[in-house]
């Protein structure tokens, strides 16, 4: 799948591939031309990606080819074993979890799981979790605490699923417990927003010591479509909504609501998933190194302080009267 704003890049890349094939077949040396085109392609990517609008970032964040949680777990970790079920009701395929080794250290990994195509997405419910998903996440986090493993949480969800079964089984209660459970965990917790960080469903896995966002990830209280539809009664104004909602990594970092932006390969994570994973790994390792150095008390004190400060006094240019 290619978005309109990506098309010039893709066309140029196709041209380069064609030239390479042609050169190979005919045995002609076209390296100079190819090099030129590659340079042009890089410049084009830089030009396009340096001025993506917030809405275009939303599209990149939702790109079906974007690496998902299991892709990252497999690229970042070794010895991953997936664990299933909440021990109460069932197993939610929209949230995955288990244990693995990250750079020599045993860790617990959890995260929302989207698919790369419709079939996978239907199986994963598009990454929209039910209560059993949040309860599984909480169970695995508490297991991590028992065995003193850090928790890596990957966030990529449009939001918690709004369905009948979800309500019957206590969606609100499950999210509330997951937030509090993560907040009070006596081991380091790093959350990485990979794509879409949608509302309470995303927040359930974002109450730890660090919230990092990939360069083109978004984190919002509600989707731009829903914002436009509720406030302006016009869902087609989602581009305007994305513009004013402050949902991009860059905007949220400027407000110090997140702790870091993880750069993506030029053109977005879906253009080079190995490089994307390498960059995510570097960022996690950097923050984890710092967090494992704190005593449990210090860790919790800092974690609570981090959230405590996000009040009105903290807002720039606002008088609390």
């Amino acid at each position, binding site marked *: 799948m290619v978005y309109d704003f990506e098309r010039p890049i893709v066309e140029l890349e196709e041209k380069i591939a064609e030239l390479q094939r042609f050169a190979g077949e005919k045995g002609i040396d076209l390296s100079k031309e190819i090099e030129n085109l590659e340079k042009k392609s890089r410049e084009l990517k830089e030009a396009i990606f340096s001025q993506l609008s917030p809405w275009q970032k939303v599209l990149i964040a939702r790109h079906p080819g974007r690496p998902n949680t299991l892709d990252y777990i497999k690229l970042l970790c070794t010895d991953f074993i997936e664990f299933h079920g909440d021990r109460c009701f069932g197993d939610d395929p929209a949230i995955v979890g288990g244990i693995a080794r990250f750079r020599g250290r045993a860790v617990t990994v959890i995260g929302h799981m989207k698919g790369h195509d419709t079939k996978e997405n239907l199986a994963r419910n598009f990454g929209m979790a039910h209560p059993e998903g949040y309860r599984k996440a909480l169970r695995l986090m508490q297991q991590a605490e028992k065995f003193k493993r850090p928790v890596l949480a990957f966030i990529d969800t449009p939001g*918690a*699923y*709004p*369905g*009948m079964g*979800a*309500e*019957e*089984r*206590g*969606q*609100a*209660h499950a*999210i*509330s*417990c997951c*937030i*509090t459970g993560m*907040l*009070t965990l006596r081991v380091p917790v790093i959350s990485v927003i990979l794509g879409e960080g949608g*509302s*309470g469903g995303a*927040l*359930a896995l*974002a*109450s730890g010591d660090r919230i990092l966002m990939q360069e083109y990830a978004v*984190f*919002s*209280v*509600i989707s731009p479509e829903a*914002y436009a539809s*509720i*406030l302006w009664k016009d869902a087609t104004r989602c581009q305007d909504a994305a513009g*004013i*909602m*402050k*949902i991009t990594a860059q905007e*949220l970092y400027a*407000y110090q*609501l997140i702790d870091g932006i993880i750069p993506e390969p030029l053109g977005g994570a879906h253009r080079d998933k190995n490089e994307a994973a390498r960059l995510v790994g570097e960022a996690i390792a950097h923050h984890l190194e710092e967090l494992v150095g704190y005593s449990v008390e210090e860790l919790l004190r800092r974690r*609570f302080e981090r*959230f*405590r400060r*996000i*009040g*009105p006094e903290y*807002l720039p*240019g*606002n008088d*609390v*009267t």
Partner: protein
Amino acid sequence: MLDIFKKQRQRYATVNPVTRDIPDGLWVKCPRCHEIQYSGELAKQLKVCARCGYHFRLSARERLKITIDEGTFIEWDGDMGPVNPFQNPEYGEKLARAQQESGLKEAVVTGEGDIAGHRVAVAVMDTRFMMASMGTVVGEKITRAIERAREKRLPLIIFSASGGARMQEGIFSLMQMTRTCAALSFFSSAGLLYISVLTDPTTGGVSASFAFAGDIILAEPGALIGFAGPRVIEQTIRQKLPEGFQSAEFLRQHGFVDAVVPRPLLKKTLAQILDLHRSD
């Protein structure tokens, strides 16, 4: 002759309209059974419909009046008004209108007072203020109330009602879920009691944070309680929800609230729970 064929001239009487002094809202129609009742009488019944038992929504002041012993309430942070983090002019206008219509500075009133002689910290959300959506200052006032309750070692009662997070404040409003939960976990580890009372409607970011974090969770009859609102669910699953779905009674049946307590019994029930948790 043949008078019967003669067209009878219709006679109209001109009635001079007598303007009687009927103030607005003297009569109230029950949204459930459509019974029209005198508002003074309704207020005496704690705004519960005499015919069908429908619980009308209460303003924060009305709730405090029927819950807290007279003359004992001390408001906290009453002068704290909302913030507009992204300086959104549409939102600014909406806030001004909400303040004017509700007479409140924000959608929650917090403070301390007595319930049948038991000192408590209390927070009451008011749906007349932007459907009691949780913005930064709502989160702040609730967080402060929880913290003060911990410092003073008071039991905490929160009357929740909310449409969810306040969209116009973006991630700042979403983060209030985590903040209030953080304050509550501190509060809880001090061995103190938090009674969450869910009133109509308790949904979204409020239900998915502090409202469901109570040691004891009570609900008012008929209150709509859930994560997603019924319209969102209906749009998602493309079918109508059954009668009573997400009602307080439905949640009790599914194991998510401890008791559904009719309003006339609520103060007594709270007093009883507080008495059973008395530390002396």
